[in-house]
């Protein structure tokens, strides 16, 4: 990275952050470094929260319930009006992918730091998102494009997409009517069984066929658009280690992704968002297996795990979001973006192991790890009481190393230094994971963690 970060053009004077916790702090930090005033909004339960303490101004927007506070569009817009904030950063979660909120801000002449309401809407709907992705040249899971009337058609579809395939009930759900076939012989039985099961379960025997992924990884591509037809990608993150679709450990670059693969899928994604004049940060999520990517969804916001991308590229994604939202061009081009080392993030949640039951409460002592290659993003402080009303994510520990082994060693070292006394956290989970050969080798997929938890504790 060598481009200047200086801007001569005027940018916002004041930004309101419609969020809480570590991501609100993250945005306040970027604002402060850009010389922009920040306004925190908070519920009555968060009056003592770190984001309120760190912001230049704060406004209480409602009671503890997030429906009445952090999701309260009118209160947030009023808070902009009374403080004179010209833009709103939504963070992740809450209103970050709420098209109506983006629209309402626009109607009030307040800039939403994120994509247009239209893009949020398109990507917020599973079906239009998939159609749009397909139309933009993003690979989706190949399948029959609707019901398959008979076995002859099924054989044709399966041959076209390649085995194994999965047969699913059009009316189905919950695993019923779903059959996997590894070859043509299995397909015949599977097709008939699936149809009869579907008939029995849903009163409708229509089935469709899709490629079956056995051990896919969750690979997501970070994209960034300037809203004027230019866009770049910032490589991938491997977020396969999930429990009940909640990511717990993310890394970049992905242990299974080669530079060629990265360049190829990255270009597809960057071109796609450029084509629709996408503005700001976005993440295109894929299932990845055997060198192929299959679109899951697009998140039209900053991701929790964005720091691993920041770490390997040395860029500040929130600063970049604010820049493009204010009309400035991207501060980097694709050729500026070079990967430097390896980054891993672990999510520290206020949860009891091994059942992940939320454990809010008083943090008596908080001591962040220090030294080379360690980044801690957390809104904790000694004496802070974690309220029980919100997400249990209380911190993200991000480490950077010259390569993956160095990053893993650093993660282990940093976890040993991190002290969060008074509550139970997911720290022991990561201590245990780091002892696993599969984790050390980077050999895991989206099923790995739940299987491991089951083996270790008899519970997913």
């Amino acid at each position, binding site marked *: 990275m060598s481009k200047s970060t200086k801007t001569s053009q005027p940018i916002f004077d004041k930004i309101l952050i419609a969020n809480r916790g570590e991501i609100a702090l993250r945005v306040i930090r970027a604002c402060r470094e850009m010389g922009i005033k920040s306004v925190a909004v908070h519920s009555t339960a968060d009056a003592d929260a770190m984001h309120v303490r760190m912001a230049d101004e704060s406004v209480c927007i409602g009671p503890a319930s997030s429906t009445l*506070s952090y999701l309260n569009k009118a209160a947030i817009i009023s808070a902009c009006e009374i403080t004179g904030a010209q833009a709103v950063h939504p963070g992740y979660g809450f209103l970050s992918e709420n098209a109506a909120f983006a629209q309402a801000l626009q109607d009030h002449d307040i800039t939403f730091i994120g994509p247009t309401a239209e893009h949020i809407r398109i990507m917020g709907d599973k079906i239009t998102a998939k159609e749009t992705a397909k139309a933009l040249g993003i690979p989706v899971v190949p399948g029959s494009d609707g019901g398959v009337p008979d076995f002859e058609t099924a054989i044709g579809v399966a041959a076209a997409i390649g085995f194994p395939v999965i047969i699913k009930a059009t009316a189905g759900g919950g695993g019923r009517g779903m059959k996997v076939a590894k070859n043509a012989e299995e397909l015949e039985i599977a097709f008939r069984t699936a149809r009869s099961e579907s008939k029995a379960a849903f009163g409708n025997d229509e089935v469709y066929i899709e490629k079956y992924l056995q051990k896919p990884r969750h690979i997501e591509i970070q994209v960034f658009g300037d809203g004027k037809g230019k866009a770049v990608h910032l490589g991938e993150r491997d977020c396969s280690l999930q429990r009940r679709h909640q990511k717990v450990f993310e890394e970049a670059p992905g242990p299974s992704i080669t530079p060629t693969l990265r360049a190829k899928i990255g270009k597809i994604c960057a071109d796609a968002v450029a084509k629709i004049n996408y503005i700001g940060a976005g993440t295109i999520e894929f299932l990845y297996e055997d060198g192929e990517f299959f679109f899951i969804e697009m998140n039209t916001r900053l991701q929790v795990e964005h720091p691993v991308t920041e770490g390997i590229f040395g860029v500040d994604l929130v600063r970049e979001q604010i820049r493009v939202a204010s009309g400035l061009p991207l501060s980097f081009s694709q050729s500026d973006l070079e990967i430097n080392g390896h980054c891993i993030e672990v999510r520290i949640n206020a949860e009891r192991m091994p059942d992940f039951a939320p454990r809010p409460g008083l943090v008596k002592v908080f001591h962040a790890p220090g030294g080379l290659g360690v980044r801690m993003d957390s809104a904790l402080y000694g004496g802070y009481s974690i309220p029980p009303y919100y997400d249990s994510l209380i911190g993200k520990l991000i480490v950077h190393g010259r390569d993956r082994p160095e990053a893993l060693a650093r993660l282990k070292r940093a976890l040993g230094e991190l002290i969060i006394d008074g509550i139970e956290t997911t720290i022991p989970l990561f201590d245990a994971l780091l002892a696993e050969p599969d984790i050390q080798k980077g050999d895991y997929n989206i099923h790995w963690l739940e299987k491991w938890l089951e083996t270790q504790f008899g519970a997913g």
Partner: protein
Amino acid sequence: MRKHSPESDVAFIAALAELLNKNDLTELSVKRDYGPDDSLDVRVVKQSNIVQMAAAAPVVQHQAAPMVAAAASAAAQAPLEDPAQHPGAVTSPMVGTVYLSAEPGAAAFVSVGSTVTEGQTVLIIEAMKTMNHIHAPRAGTVKRIVVSDGQAVEYGAPLLIIE
């Protein structure tokens, strides 16, 4: 006259300590007269605030640091000190701008000393270009008006005190 034994005193004091802990108290004083010549005077203290001290510390750190600014600005926007704790306080149900009269130049809805009936409009809060009438939650006399015309208020900010 039966004297209380030290053992029973200890048990009594232990019960007090437990009570202190269970109820999150910080101090407990008891004077017990068992008889003319038999009294017990106990004071049990727990310096809790260990953590509050730590918690409060970040704010007082740098004189010029932004945290103070945040705290100060929050305080300026919502004088939550006294009036909010008052049992007669009417607090703001929304974020917005207060107007004490129906239109510029018109008489104020209420002033200190006004007698109000339940449901009577006491002021207006503008939020998202909408004028929201704030009604008296109960009948009484306006003892104090905490906000001024045109002032921005956050959720829960005290507006006036009716007793």
